[in-house]
């Protein structure tokens, strides 16, 4: 009975540690609410650590093209991400039109994009660290084809 308890505790500990490692880069949150009656509601919360890993599973042809295209912009992207990390929480862009609202902000280490238009409400929140890792992974793909 004690042995069983130890095994369960060990498994729970491993699961907790695994979950902790998986969430160490924060969480990506995507929420889409269609405004039409009975429209689908999508709400996905995923560990941000999966984003750079997902790059490995992208189609090699598409990945190579994306990597080539992103390469010239990498110094600017790195500088922007560095700047974003250091800056306080702020709304970078807010566009209001009679039937549409778009807001891009930094909130608690994440870049948050909110769109509210006639058809749907979209909320995407991505940790800056995850964006950085994913972009670096993508850029590396051009020098080391997967």
């Amino acid at each position, binding site marked *: 009975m004690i042995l069983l308890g130890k095994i369960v505790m060990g498994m729970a500990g491993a699961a907790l540690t695994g979950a902790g490692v998986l969430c160490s880069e924060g969480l990506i949150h995507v929420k889409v609410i269609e405004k039409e009656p009975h429209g689908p509601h999508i709400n996905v919360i995923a560990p941000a650590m999966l984003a750079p890993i997902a790059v490995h599973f992208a189609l090699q042809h598409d990945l190579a093209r994306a990597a080539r295209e992103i390469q010239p912009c990498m110094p600017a992207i790195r*500088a922007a991400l560095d700047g*974003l990390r250091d*800056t306080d*929480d*702020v709304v970078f862009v*807010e566009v*209001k039109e009679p039937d549409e609202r778009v807001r891009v902000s930094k909130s608690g280490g994440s870049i948050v994009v909110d769109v509210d238009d006639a058809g749907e409400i979209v909320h995407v929140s991505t940790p800056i660290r995850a964006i950085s890792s994913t972009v670096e992974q993508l850029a590396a793909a051009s020098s080391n084809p997967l």
Partner: protein
Amino acid sequence: MRETMTVLCLLAAGAMAVAGPAVAAPAEKYLHVNVEDPTKGESVNVNVTLSMAEKILPAINNHNLHDGKVLIHNTELNGVDVRALLDAVRTAPDNEFVAVKDKDSDVHVAKANGNIIVHVIDKKNKEQKVDVTVPLKVVDALFETAKNDELDIAAALRALSDAGDILLVTVQDSSQKVRVWVDSRNTQD
């Protein structure tokens, strides 16, 4: 007891001396852009930290922009020695330097309180009014370290950070209003 108090006071003074510069560190400056079009019910707000812009700019090398400097073609200057012109303006007392009025436009350029101030009224274009205020220090920074055919935008941003809160540009016509300004607040409220 007295010795302990003395040591504590000295420690506190030391801590304050160390913390002093951190407390006195200049606040982050934000460049704000606000476009309002009440006739269409539209508005656009942009808020960017100047420090972030300073970091990003030198990393962009594209067309005429390199290392935070913009290349100006000589033809665009029409043979005007901008440095000499600026030197003359810098040393001149506050005054209105240019006033041009014709049937299409009304242009005034003046120097006041260390700023270059430009007022333009475009009579042809919906009575559009443009007001530009640029601190002379920012204009100086544009040219200080740049070559003859360059403008040092990164240096100008640094100078702008030190220039204090300022309304840089307002553009107003019958439908739209545009404002560009710098302050230490991260919102436009």
